[in-house]
């Protein structure tokens, strides 16, 4: 599976995972082309973003350190 940007794509967030949810980019998923996210992708309250090594534009971080999720 690939995500292909056609031209310079601007986003506010690439990915958000809140309230025990899972967002996984399986092994082999690629992002092709220029994508620019204004803010970092966020996990919150026991959620997960599993990138399997994929670099998301803007990066991935905890929304609130006192209510963390899983980044992998």
């Amino acid at each position, binding site marked *: 599976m690939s*995500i292909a940007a056609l031209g310079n794509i601007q986003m506010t967030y690439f990915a*958000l995972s*809140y309230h*025990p949810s*899972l967002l*996984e980019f*399986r092994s082999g998923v690629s992002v092709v082309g220029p*994508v620019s996210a204004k803010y970092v992708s966020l996990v919150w309250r026991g959620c997960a973003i599993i990138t399997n090594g994929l670099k998301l534009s803007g990066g991935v971080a905890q929304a609130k350190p006192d209510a963390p999720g899983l980044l992998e």
Partner: protein
Amino acid sequence: MRRSRFLICILALATILASGFLFLGYSQPPAQRLRAHGQIFHVSPSGSNSNNDRLTQETPGQTIQYAVGHVMADWDFAWQGDPLIRLGPGIYSEGAVLAGQPVGAHTISIVGQQDSDPGQSCSLAQAEQVVIRAPGRAAFYIQDLAIGAVRCLTLEGADSVGLVCRQTPASDIAFVKFGNSQSLGGGIHANENCSVNLGGTIWLGANIDTFLYANLMSRIT
């Protein structure tokens, strides 16, 4: 004399009962669902919801929502194959809300001009032939145990979200272009125990506020 009065009373009572049943709609047998075998339903922006049966490319319905309603209300798929709604080229002013499952089937597939090979492959040029422009609302809203497969088309619309789902076990999105001449407010927003699988190529054709959003025990993979 007494006997004839009794018969007249019985006849009058029978007449009253019969007209009561007529009034309540009991006079006709219930409408039968049509039996399908992996039925394909055709839709085109130049089609007609009222005059066409949607069963051939030459007799397409006009709107996706109407075709979904037709699938849900009029057909029994009898486990002989899931319904497939095939969209002809053009620009559609709305997508569809899917809720529940068809009788005798699980999945409603809504596809554009994809290849008919087993891989159902789709190029960018094919995906761009079918555009769902739904400004201000979700192009596709899948909820309440509905299972949808959306393939080979383009979604756009100011302040629109390409796909919103809630309370559904699994839906597939493949070979879909998000944003075209118009941007999108969101790409895929999964809420309240919704699962979405992405496949094939996902094209990003215009700016998007939040591309992937999983909330309240949902899953996007």
